[in-house]
């Protein structure tokens, strides 16, 4: 085939290549459309089946509700505006929890990198803290800090900080030795080494930790709100559960799914901004 194409004139050759490219493009477009289609079908089937099953009492509508009921409840709550304080509160707690969690975790990781002695001393404590279910400390935070925003954020931090520290510190230690050598050879101080090499080399891991923390923060906030809140989506879930209004529980879950997805996409956007242009070696 190669020999043949060489024999062709330049023009036929480029035409042939262009045709191949067009074929490839249309094939990949067809594949993309098919994926979207199957996705949509799954969603419609799921919601439709749920609706039918609920209306026909194949499943207990008191327990599992069904989509149109949930939709109506959501619309009502949006119309009378009663939903927004709950959404605002929970989103506020989650965002503060996950930004602070990542920052504090990174800061502790930096401390451990800076003082290897401290890192060796703290190692077993970090391992124990990491394997402990820290949400169990929630009641203590609530008593100590009073019920409300602060104690919920601190509960969230207890979930995110340790794992962030461990992940990022491990990355700090695994930064390519040669890159560190390059700046050391220029007489860089430890702070400069940290700033010029360690931090930028760890950006991808810091971002992926941010992504994990989106999920973890929601866990922390939910637990906190279950325990104490008078406001928030976690409160709505617990309230719905107590009055046996599972439509309210599921409606809250739908909102959480939407907000969590938006937060995740924002982090992805940030990732693209921060790591634009670079690629792994």
């Amino acid at each position, binding site marked *: 085939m190669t020999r043949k194409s060489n024999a062709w004139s330049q023009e036929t050759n480029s035409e042939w290549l262009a045709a191949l490219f067009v074929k490839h493009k249309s094939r990949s477009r067809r594949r993309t459309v098919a994926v979207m289609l199957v996705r949509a079908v799954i969603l419609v089937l799921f919601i439709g089946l749920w609706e039918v099953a609920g209306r026909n009492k194949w499943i207990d509508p008191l327990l599992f509700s069904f989509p149109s009921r949930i939709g109506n409840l959501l619309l009502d709550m949006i119309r009378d505006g009663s939903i927004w304080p709950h959404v605002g509160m929970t989103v506020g707690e989650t965002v503060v929890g996950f930004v602070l969690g990542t920052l504090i975790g990174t800061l502790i990781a930096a401390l451990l990198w800076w003082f290897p002695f401290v890192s060796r001393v703290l190692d077993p404590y970090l391992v124990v803290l990491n394997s402990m279910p820290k949400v169990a400390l929630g009641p203590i935070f609530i008593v100590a800090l009073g019920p409300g925003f602060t104690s919920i954020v601190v509960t969230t931090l207890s979930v995110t900080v340790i794992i962030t520290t461990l992940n990022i510190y491990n990355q700090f230690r695994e930064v*390519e030795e*040669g*890159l560190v*050598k*390059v*700046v*050391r*050879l*220029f*007489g*860089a101080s430890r702070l*400069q080494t940290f700033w*010029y*090499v360690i931090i*930028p*080399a760890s*950006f991808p891991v810091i971002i992926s930790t941010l992504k994990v923390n989106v999920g973890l923060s929601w866990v922390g906030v939910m637990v906190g709100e279950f325990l104490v809140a008078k406001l928030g989506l976690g409160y709505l879930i617990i309230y719905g559960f107590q009055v046996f209004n599972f439509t309210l529980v599921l409606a809250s879950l739908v909102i959480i799914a939407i907000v969590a997805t938006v937060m995740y996409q924002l982090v992805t956007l940030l990732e693209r901004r921060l*790591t634009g*242009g*670079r*690629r*792994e*070696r």
Partner: protein
Amino acid sequence: MPDHGKLRLHNVTHVYVNDGGASLAVDSFNLTVGQGEFVSLVGPSGCGKTTVLHLIAGLLRPTRGEVTIGGAAVTGPTASVGYMLQQDYLFPWRNIQDNASIGLAINGKLTPDAKSRVRGLLQELELSGTELRYPHELSGGMRQRVALARTLATEPDVMLLDEPFSALDMHIKLQLEDLVWDTIRRRGQTAVLVTHDLAEAAAMSDRIIVLGRNPGRIRLTLDVPEELRRTSPMEARRHPSFQPLFEQLWEEMDVEEAASSSVDVRKERNGHHDEKV
């Protein structure tokens, strides 16, 4: 040959100590390199070539003895000593221009003047047009040229070359040897090259030092004939006096390899020196 020493290692001994024990890497090493001289260190692996280079760069402090550059003792790495590594180690998140000027940034000398000098350097090394591109977009030879630009940007007067050509294809390697040799000559820099490639050492340097291993010490010093010193590496390889020099080096290395591959000899030597440590 220049009369005064730009670079001196005086009775330098280096011991690596770790959990596995202490081992003697370089023993009572003496070396004087004149201003503008190009010296190569060759020897079998494990002969302490790179350790010597690290000592000169200030990355390591000698366990005993003293290293001086221009009469002043070396206390740590500075930008006035340039160091080229075996790999380019460009920062993937910095574009080429920013990679080349990292040394200036670290030393707080990234003035507009310095920036334009870096652009000039990139041009001189035939890298113009790549300033805003990222390392992964460049070929291996280009990347190593960027690493050279990065080293030259801080205008060092001593250049330490730690096998900087060994990871490259033959063709690119020869080109880069010429380029590096030429830039160093034109700037009148003092250079120390560590290599395991005997032809490279013969083609580039004024003086070749053959090291023996366990521990590292000078076995032999060979002066490169005047006519080879003056010609570029590429031409030197074709010069009639090149082959005899290369063969002489080859024989020396053969003897050294034979000696150090004998385990008994090595053990005896090690034991002897451990007592001294």
